[in-house]
């Protein structure tokens, strides 16, 4: 009985954690999508975002464009085509 309850609790925790991670990834991709759009670059939608360093991401767009989005030393957001 206790074992099955523990299993359920673990499953619930795992589900909650994965949901949280998914929503964080989704909000990051939305953020990067609107950033690239604001910079006037073609992208459509960010599909994957790989973190290179702090405030530095390697992004792949739905239209196959790839960018490095980062904050430069002057505090400006830059999207470099790769």
């Amino acid at each position, binding site marked *: 009985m206790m074992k099955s309850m523990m299993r359920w609790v673990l499953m619930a925790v795992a589900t909650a954690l994965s949901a949280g991670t998914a929503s964080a990834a989704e909000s990051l991709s939305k*953020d990067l999508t609107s*950033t690239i759009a*604001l910079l006037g670059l073609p992208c459509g939608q960010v599909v994957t975002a790989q973190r290179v360093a702090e405030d530095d991401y390697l992004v792949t767009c739905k239209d196959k464009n790839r960018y490095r989005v980062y904050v430069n030393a002057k505090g*400006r957001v830059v999207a470099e085509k790769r």
Partner: protein
Amino acid sequence: MNEAVRRKDMLPLLSAGLLVLLATAGCAPFERASPPAAGVEADAPKKPLAEAQGAPTPAPEVKPAAPEPAAPPAAPPPADTPATRTVEPAAPATPPGAEKPAAKAPAEPAPKKQTAAAPAQPPLDLNALEKRLKDTDAIGVFTKLTLKNQVDDLLAQFEAHHGGANRTSLAALRQPYDLLIIKVLSLLQDRDARLANDLVQSREAIWSILSDPAKFQRLVNENRS
């Protein structure tokens, strides 16, 4: 005998059918009831938007305005100028009703006050607006930073214009200003409608600060200090 058996067989089917009927009947009013509830929130930003653009659309509000004369005290939005202004079109709405002269009397003086208040610009608190933009969850960090960069670029253009270094006319600066506002609004409108609404309301007030050299200089000095 056979009929009795058939009836017994039909009983679960009938009861299931009845349940389905009840369930669908129960759902129907919910579907209809929910849109107005959502509409209240969704309409809130839209009305001022239309106003800001000077859209003369009193017609759609004609009908709901008629029962509203009694509602004004119940409306909490009076604190917001947009809500009071949206009632404005209610004034022309009452005459077509023309049912009770007693109802007309209280309805008419109210619009006069509102029309007098309408030309006054909404109170603009730039610092509060800036803080709300910084704090909102509707825009991500990267996007906020990108927007800030673009705001800074635009401010630099205004500074150059007022300083005489840049010969671009104010009319030419209005276009990037509008574009920037639209960008921010497009980011806000779905996830922070209230802030989007307030931004729309402040649009002209912000422009008046940017376009006036004295006001602009004061703003720059405040930011530097």
